């Protein structure tokens, strides 16, 4: 049952949680005492522009986050002046920070997936730097609590106990706010900015229900953070849920239990259902199973749905493919789950798509302690188009290489070679499978070319959600007129200017259809279509395959479906493609 804690990445996550329990438990009590709950929630989120700047300019993310948090703190307290606990000012500065971060992220630097990770946290990707930061925060918090905790206690008790000797109350408050900011940054890696309060506030509030004295409260808070973090981490491995959210749920459940227990003591009848409900929640959360590998097969991890499809085609029954991304999920939004790291730990071969699409795989593999070779299939494809030029997140090559079937052929050959090296006994079977699949790919390529030839070149004008189809367009003579998100990553957000430029272009070029992507959901594409009179009814499979049973549930199906949708869109619905190849 405790197997989870034998995995090295889980052990490191556990260590991080245990170290953080000291500052989280201590500061949690001060946060509650001093009415800083909203501030502590805001300060982690307000670190966002710092994270973007750090990513864009290439310095350490915690440094950027802490800088932003300090500026936020100074701004919020400076504006607040004498009026303590004015949440409106905190909210005002928070909104400024978030807006600044979004503008920086989408218009100045482009954007990258590591910002997502920092906003939502990733306990399974804790490294030595994170542990050191947590340790430093723990030491600073402990020291400050020992030396000046009494001043915080008194200032919270009554701010107007006049004594002019020594530093002002503002001095001690500044230290407290600084520590809260530091601890929020340290916790970013674990639970992410949006769930920081799960570590800081919820255990402290829970412990407060059960204790009357500061010291007991603080010790109990620390113990609760440690226990909830440990249980949450274990549960997240067992149920394969994101660890930060799981810890937050466990903390919430413990709070409900504690509140119910307290109510039970004062009013036994009324509270019983609440306690039963809370226990049920915990039980339900505790259920879940784990998958285990098959010893006779080659264990393969593929990052994207396309690579998973290729690997299954080539490997056949001789491989066990664990595919990290799932259909219709946006790879730019990926957060690692325990099973991903666990699968990577047991993998013999890991297939990656390359560039910024799945850059996180390197860290997952190295953190899992796996010896597996990461095969970057994107690096070996023959046709490569330039990536985005601007911003630090720009990549050298456009990562959506699979939309040219000639590149898919090269990837299939690469998979065949890697599988043969991993299991030489099955070499001939892999070769047979690969050859059969490659024949299908070539037929696919010819069929799509034929189909698009049925549309006059002047009408092959493509407008999509984001710039994912340059390879497809390049292969089949399609002109990419624009994209709703003018970026190869879906992380960027279109500005009003971008959208009105696009609308003008669509009207000037007489574009008949805009093609939303299946994995992105309804977006601005529909709005642009309504404004310009173009249709937006034909969706494309861009970054991932469709779910099982959809027309795009395999690579071949996906490309056929895309060709069909484009031809129908270009011709205003007159015709699609010829019968399937």
């Amino acid at each position: 049952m405790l197997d989870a804690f034998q995995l090295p990445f889980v052990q490191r996550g556990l260590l991080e949680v245990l170290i953080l329990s000291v500052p989280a438990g201590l500061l949690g009590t001060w946060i509650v005492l001093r009415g800083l709950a909203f501030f502590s929630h805001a300060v982690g989120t307000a670190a966002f522009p710092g994270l973007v700047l750090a990513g864009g300019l290439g310095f350490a993310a915690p440094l950027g986050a802490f800088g932003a948090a300090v500026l936020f703190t100074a701004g919020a307290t400076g504006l607040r002046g004498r009026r303590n606990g004015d949440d409106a000012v905190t909210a005002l500065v928070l909104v400024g920070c978030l807006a600044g971060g979004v503008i920086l992220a989408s218009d100045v630097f482009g954007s990258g997936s590591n910002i997502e990770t920092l906003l939502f946290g990733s306990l399974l990707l804790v490294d030595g730097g994170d542990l050191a930061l947590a340790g430093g925060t723990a030491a600073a918090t402990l020291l400050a609590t020992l030396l000046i905790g009494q001043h915080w206690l008194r200032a919270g008790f009554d701010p107007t106990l006049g004594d002019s000797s020594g530093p002002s109350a503002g001095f001690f408050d500044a230290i407290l706010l600084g520590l809260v900011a530091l601890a929020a940054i340290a916790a970013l890696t674990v639970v992410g900015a949006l769930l920081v309060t799960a570590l800081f506030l919820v255990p402290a509030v829970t412990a407060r229900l059960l204790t009357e004295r500061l010291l007991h409260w603080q010790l109990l808070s620390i113990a609760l953070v440690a226990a909830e973090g440990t249980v949450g981490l274990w549960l997240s491995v067992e149920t394969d849920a994101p660890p930060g959210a799981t810890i937050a749920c466990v903390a919430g459940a413990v709070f409900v239990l504690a509140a119910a227990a307290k109510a039970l003591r004062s009013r036994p009848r009324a509270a019983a259902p609440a306690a039963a409900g809370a226990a049920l929640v915990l039980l339900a959360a505790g259920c879940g199973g784990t998958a285990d590998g098959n010893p006779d097969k080659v264990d393969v991890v593929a990052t994207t749905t396309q690579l998973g499809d290729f690997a299954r085609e080539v490997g056949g029954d001789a491989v066990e493919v664990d595919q990290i991304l799932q259909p219709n999920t946006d790879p730019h939004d990926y957060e690692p789950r325990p099973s991903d790291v666990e699968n990577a730990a047991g993998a013999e071969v890991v297939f990656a798509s390359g560039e910024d699409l799945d850059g996180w795989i390197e860290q997952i593999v190295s953190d899992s302690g796996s010896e597996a070779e990461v095969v970057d299939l994107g690096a070996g494809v023959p046709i490569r188009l330039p990536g985005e030029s601007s911003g630090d997140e720009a990549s050298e090559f456009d990562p959506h290489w699979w939309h040219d079937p000639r590149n898919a052929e090269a990837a299939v050959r690469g998979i065949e070679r890697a599988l043969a090296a991993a299991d030489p006994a099955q070499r001939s079977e892999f070769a047979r499978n690969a050859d059969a699949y490659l024949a299908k790919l070539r037929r696919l390529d010819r069929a799509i070319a034929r189909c698009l030839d049925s549309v006059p070149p002047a009408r092959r004008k493509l407008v999509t959600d984001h710039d994912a189809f340059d390879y497809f367009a390049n292969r089949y003579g399609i002109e990419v007129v624009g994209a709703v998100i003018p970026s190869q990553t879906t992380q960027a957000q279109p500005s009003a200017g971008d959208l009105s430029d696009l609308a003008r272009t669509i009207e000037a070029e007489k574009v008949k259809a805009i093609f939303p992507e299946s994995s992105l959901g309804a977006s601005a594409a529909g709005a642009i279509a309504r404004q310009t009179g173009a249709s937006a009814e034909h969706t494309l499979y861009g970054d991932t395959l469709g779910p099982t049973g959809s027309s795009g549930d395999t690579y071949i199906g996906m490309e056929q479906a895309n060709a069909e949708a484009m031809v129908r869109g270009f011709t205003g619905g007159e015709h699609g493609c010829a019968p399937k190849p």
Partner: protein
Amino acid sequence: MRTEALIEAEGLAAGYDGRPAISGLSFQLRAGERMALLGPNGGGKTTLLRALLGELTPLSGELRVEARCGIVPQTERSQLDYPVSALDVATMGALSRLPWWRRPGRREREQAAAALDRVGLRPLAGETFGKVSGGQRQRVLIARSLVQDTRVLLLDEPFTGLDRPSSERLEDLIAELTGEGRAVAIATHDLEQARRSDSVLCLNRRQIAFGRPGETLDVGVLEATYGGTIVELPGAAGRAILPPHHHHH
């Protein structure tokens, strides 16, 4: 009793953001004296206490504070739920005497226990502050002021909400403290309280009057103090409160 003046104000004005909330204050508070600050809500009693504590710097005039002042504030609702014992609260008084990086140790806790003893609350030292009665809370806060080693105690509406026995105990304690040579200033609405003091300062955004209660508290002063809207009838047994147009001279 012409002893040294611990606090002396001359034409004092104080307030927030450069705007005076009180002005024209000229008074002295001497060792062993009990002074009443009489005035309506919003009349500036709390502003004056904050100026005496040094939290507000005078906007004009002069204020000389020759001794350490300690305040016994009104209990805030949030304090009732605060995770501290009576002893913890009394110990807080030591913070203003210690260097800022020193936490109160055994010595300070012993002083706090002695101060609780002094106000008759030694048995309640371990009780949660919010759980003791209102009168006991006032005495805990007075104990804190004693630990702070203050010669001037500023009490903000200390009798509000106290029952008669609690009020009497507090009266006795205040008498003891002034007997030791401490000065006590009491902000109050209560005319009877004001009458029992050595001096009374009538305050309604400016100083209406200052002097011995018997010479100071007449109807004109009280009408001016309470803005001419309501006035307590001097000498009325039930302390009736009537609008000024109801009484006839």
